[in-house]
């Protein structure tokens, strides 16, 4: 025993404590790994996407990219530079092969090869810079408007589908789809929620409704797509159209909106309803004047989350509303006002799918790919962030 006898509550380090600390750390690292993984996606898309969306000169936003229609991109590379580059490349390859064949046998020669390769690399870099400076890029419309197209003996001509122009119609299409579907979903969802929270009595029907809502929320989005295709596109004969997309997406958003609305209404204290009823208000009056107005902020906030989800979905609109390419804006070329509802539109999520699966990935298509993804993420992120922030505010503001 030591001279100073420790009291029994003194801090001691023990095997158990170390394991404890280790485990806590493990949990922390897992959490932060998830956070970092998601953050990496945000950062990667933001950095690469900003190159397409922003520019260094006024107005600092690439207006053409945000408003123009997607088109084929025509690229003219200076043939001479291109060919020189090819030669340099092949020289480098030859030297590298030789160097590898040499092995360790002749360090001196190997060294000189390395020097040559270095020099050639530098030359290649400068040629590449030159190529980037002298190459010509045209969207399809610009290309057609050219009076004299570049001399093909001096230029190498390549075309890349969807990579030129901008994503204007897709942005507009997405906005139209989201606005329409959310309006439909809000009306239907609100009616359903009012019944569930205010009028329903426990019983078989109520159970069935609740079970249906729960199950509906788990149905894969592609199944909603199939359903929309079968019902709206084919059975109702609406074709691939805005309105078919609205209803398909609205039905998808319903469970979120119903659940959110009901929750907000249930959070209204009983006293508000009883107080009104005791004064001789009818049930509907008490709901209308003393429940809905106070539940509405909560309902709208949570519904924005529904909007974010709806805007982010691709599968349901693939065969109900989206066109891969449409060079008219929704209000162009209508013969009849009702045609507006019965036309297919471009949509950002579907456009991302198209440009990331149907065209190759290289320096020319990259801007379109990342730019679209970035704009889309920005739009969806805006909705989601608004929803999350508003909810925090609403929760602290409306405490009964």
């Amino acid at each position, binding site marked *: 025993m030591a001279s100073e006898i420790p009291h029994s509550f003194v801090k001691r380090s023990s095997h158990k404590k170390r394991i404890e600390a280790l485990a806590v750390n493990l949990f922390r690292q897992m959490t932060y790994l998830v956070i970092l993984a998601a953050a990496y996606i945000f950062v990667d898309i933001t950095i690469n996407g900003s190159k397409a969306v922003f520019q260094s000169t006024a107005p600092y936003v690439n207006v053409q990219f945000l408003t123009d229609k997607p088109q084929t991109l025509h690229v003219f590379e200076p043939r001479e530079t291109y060919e020189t580059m090819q030669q340099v490349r092949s020289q480098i390859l030859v030297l590298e092969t030789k160097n590898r064949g040499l092995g360790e046998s002749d360090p001196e020669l190997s060294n000189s090869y390395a020097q040559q390769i270095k020099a050639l690399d530098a030359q290649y870099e400068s040629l590449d810079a030159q190529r980037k400076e002298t190459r010509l890029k045209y969207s399809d419309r610009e290309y057609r408007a050219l009076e004299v197209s570049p001399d093909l003996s001096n230029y190498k001509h390549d075309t890349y589908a969807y990579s030129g122009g901008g994503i204007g119609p897709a942005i507009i299409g997405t906005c139209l789809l989201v606005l329409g579907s959310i309006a439909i979903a809000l009306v239907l969802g609100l009616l359903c929620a009012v019944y569930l929270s205010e009028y329903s009595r426990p019983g078989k029907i109520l159970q069935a409704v609740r079970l249906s809502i729960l199950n509906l929320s788990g149905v894969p989005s592609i199944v909603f797509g199939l359903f929309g295709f079968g019902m709206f596109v084919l059975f109702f004969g609406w074709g691939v159209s805005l309105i078919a997309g609205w209803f398909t997406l609205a039905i998808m958003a319903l469970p979120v909106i119903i659940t959110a609305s009901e929750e907000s209404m249930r959070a209204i*204290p009983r*006293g508000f309803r*009883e107080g009104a009823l*005791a*004064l*001789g*208000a009818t049930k509907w009056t008490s709901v209308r*004047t003393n429940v809905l107005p106070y539940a509405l902020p909560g309902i709208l906030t949570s519904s924005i989350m529904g909007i974010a989800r709806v805007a982010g979905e691709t599968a349901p609109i693939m065969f109900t509303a989206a066109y891969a390419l449409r060079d008219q804006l929704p209000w162009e070329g209508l013969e009849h006002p009702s045609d507006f509802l019965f036309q297919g539109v471009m949509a950002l999520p579907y456009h991302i799918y198209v440009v990331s699966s149907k065209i190759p990935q290289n320096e020319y298509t990259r801007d379109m790919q990342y730019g679209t993804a970035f704009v889309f993420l920005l739009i969806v992120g805006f909705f989601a962030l608004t929803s999350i922030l508003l909810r925090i505010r609403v929760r602290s503001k409306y405490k009964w």
Partner: protein
Amino acid sequence: MNPKNTPLPSNPTNPIIEVRDFNFMYGSAQALYDISLDIGEKEVTALIGPSGCGKSTFLRCFNRMNDLIDNTRIPGGTIKISDVDIYHKDIDVIELRKHVGMVFQKSNPFPKSIYENIAYGLRIQGIKRKNEIDQVVEECLRGAALWDEVKDRLSDSALGMSGGQQQRLCIARALAVKPKIILMDEPCSALDPVATAKVEELIHVLKENYTIVIVTHNMQQAARLSDRTAFFYLGKLIEYGPNEQVFMNPENPKTEAYVSGRFG
């Protein structure tokens, strides 16, 4: 069992509410057993008893607030208000509730302004004229002895008032639809002694014009306020009579035990 429509012994001679053999069930659990009593017009009647004895349930039967609770039913008995059976199928519950106002245990002002809280009862009846509403609001606030305290901040939120004020506001709100009867479900249980005293004072004044039925846990309050007191125990009416009888000279030993504080 008392034959129907004959005055019950020790009951008031001028009844406005007549209850006969009244039973009440929550699902399969019976909450009230064969209650019969009369409540006199423009009297204060207190309902007392230990927690869960059914006094609040009974109170809520007078304006059919229990309709809002699922799975409730009345296996037998009647309640008549002004000679009308309020559980008859032709009864308009909405009109009944205008006739029988209610003040709740926890004050529940709407999250609106003080003015709008009072005006609510008028507005839902479709009354829109500003001067008429103004008049009623002032009348009710005066009636609830609140006018002097709040006349300068009528457009402030009612949620900013103190607990006692809120409860008196709720009473004022109930007055606005001009009921005959006011039900009070432990109106002072959440208030401090000063606020309680103010509410009690108000009840005293209101007695002149309204019939008041009040549920309370506080026996002193019952003794102070009421003309008659009914003692409930386990869903049964044990004793009912003028205050002097119930508090000073109870017939039933259980009543005696309760009022003297030996259980509860």
